[in-house]
């Protein structure tokens, strides 16, 4: 099994979710995140005091998949998340030792 993690622009979440559903992914976890890459942050002004805001809002998506599906699923996420502008985010995968479905106790790929 693999854990796919994607950090993307918040407004692309719906597209990514729809694409994953079409691909046949049954579940995912979404977290609100902050971060920056090459695009860095922006400047805000409050009563004359200027602040650079380094961290910009992002959405972090986590999906557990079987090994064979991993590469294709990464492509699906990347395609759905892409706007072509700076700040589109990153996607990566790491191997996962085991997974358990809490309700039934099923283990491994059966738990997905």
């Amino acid at each position, binding site marked *: 099994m693999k854990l796919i993690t994607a950090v993307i622009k918040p407004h692309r979440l719906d597209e990514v979710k729809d694409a994953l559903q079409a691909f046949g992914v049954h579940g995912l976890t979404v977290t609100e995140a902050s971060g920056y890459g090459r695009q860095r942050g922006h400047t805000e*002004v*409050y*009563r*004359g*005091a200027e602040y650079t805001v380094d961290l910009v809002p992002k959405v972090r998506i986590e999906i557990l998949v079987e090994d064979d599906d991993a590469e294709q699923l990464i492509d699906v996420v990347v395609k759905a998340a892409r706007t072509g502008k700076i700040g589109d985010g990153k996607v990566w995968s790491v191997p996962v030792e085991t997974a358990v479905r809490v309700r039934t106790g099923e283990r491994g790929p059966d738990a997905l």
Partner: protein
Amino acid sequence: MPDGFSAGDTAFVFICAALVMLMTPGLAFFYGGMVRVKSTLNMLVMSFISLAIVSVLWVLYGYTLAFGPDAGAGLIGNLDFLGMRGIGLNDITGTIPVTAFSAFQLMFAIITPALISGAVADRTKFTGWALFVALWVTVVYFPVAHWVFFFDGGNGGWLGDRNGVIDFAGGTAVHINAGVAGLALCLVLGKRVGFKKDPMRPHSLPLVMLGSGLLWFGWFGFNAGSALAANGVAGMAFLNTQVATAAAVLGWLAYEKIKHGAFTTLGAASGAVAGLVAITPACGSVSLLGAIAIGIVAGAACAAAISLKYRFNFDDSLDVVGVHAVGGIIGSLAIGLFATGHVGQSAQGLFYGGGLGQLGKQAMGVAVVAVYSFVLSWLLGQAIHKTIGLRVSEDVEVAGIDQAEHAESAYDFSAVGASLGRAVSAATAAHTTAAAKKTEVDA
């Protein structure tokens, strides 16, 4: 009711008193939105406690010190009305019951110390603040209100009644007074941890907008109500208030756009308050064109003045000096330039052929109130700071004053955060609080 009583005027003044009362919660929101999340509640309750403390002191001795018969030289009222005794149910002043006048003036006494709280955000010990409010209204606000607002046919307050300083609704007694006190108090307390280094951006601009909207609304009571009658002067004060405030929003936004490249929401809200402050003393003596001029100047000048704290290195957290002291001074001096002599007052300003006479009187009023307020506020602040303490520990300030001083947090949006809490019995809670206090003392 006796001859001269007017039911219309009385109804108007009661409504205005309620409008002015609403300004204090409005101010709490205006300030509350501007601080960081961790001190939101402290900021709100610093204003709210003024409603509680000053109301009680007002009926006990505040009214008689401010509006009792003059005790000598126009400096303070005598104690004839201690506890509001000796005021009959049907006694009137002008055309309204004394009770209505007293209620209206009380609301001014409440908001003035509340205004100061913005200068000392995030770091003021609540007991120290409460004591400061009680002492400050006693030795600063009540006497200054007497100087400026008490008229008794030439035997009233020494600035207004005896020397012709014009302050229609409180440019000196309320705004310069509070603004300068804010400066004194933030100098006593010192800068916040991270001043000029950490970002201290407002946590909720919608709350700031709500607060400035409530202030604007309530200010019609403040200014028009100061005519103490539902008449033409009140109408003029009402319209002057609206148009000066509007012009100040434009003035502030124009300055900001030129200087910083953006029209900010906070700038619009701050410009409105700057305009309201500046027109307060002048709304009963200037024309609508004069009001527009005062508004534009005040908006732009206050927008420029708020950066002084960075240059001179004092942490007036929410710009009480830049908005209330500077705005109040502009409005008070502007009377000496723009008074037409045809609104509520006969004195004329420089631009209307009155020469420099009124301008000199206004400058004297500004200087007297500013010096008196600064010295007394600084002394009171030092006295409290050296005894029961006026500033929380650095740990408390960094962690957030809300939890340490009030045992609450302003917002709980997090499902995880809520599930971490566990209900404890009342006894356990009291015990925990005591333990927390002990830890704080030890620290």
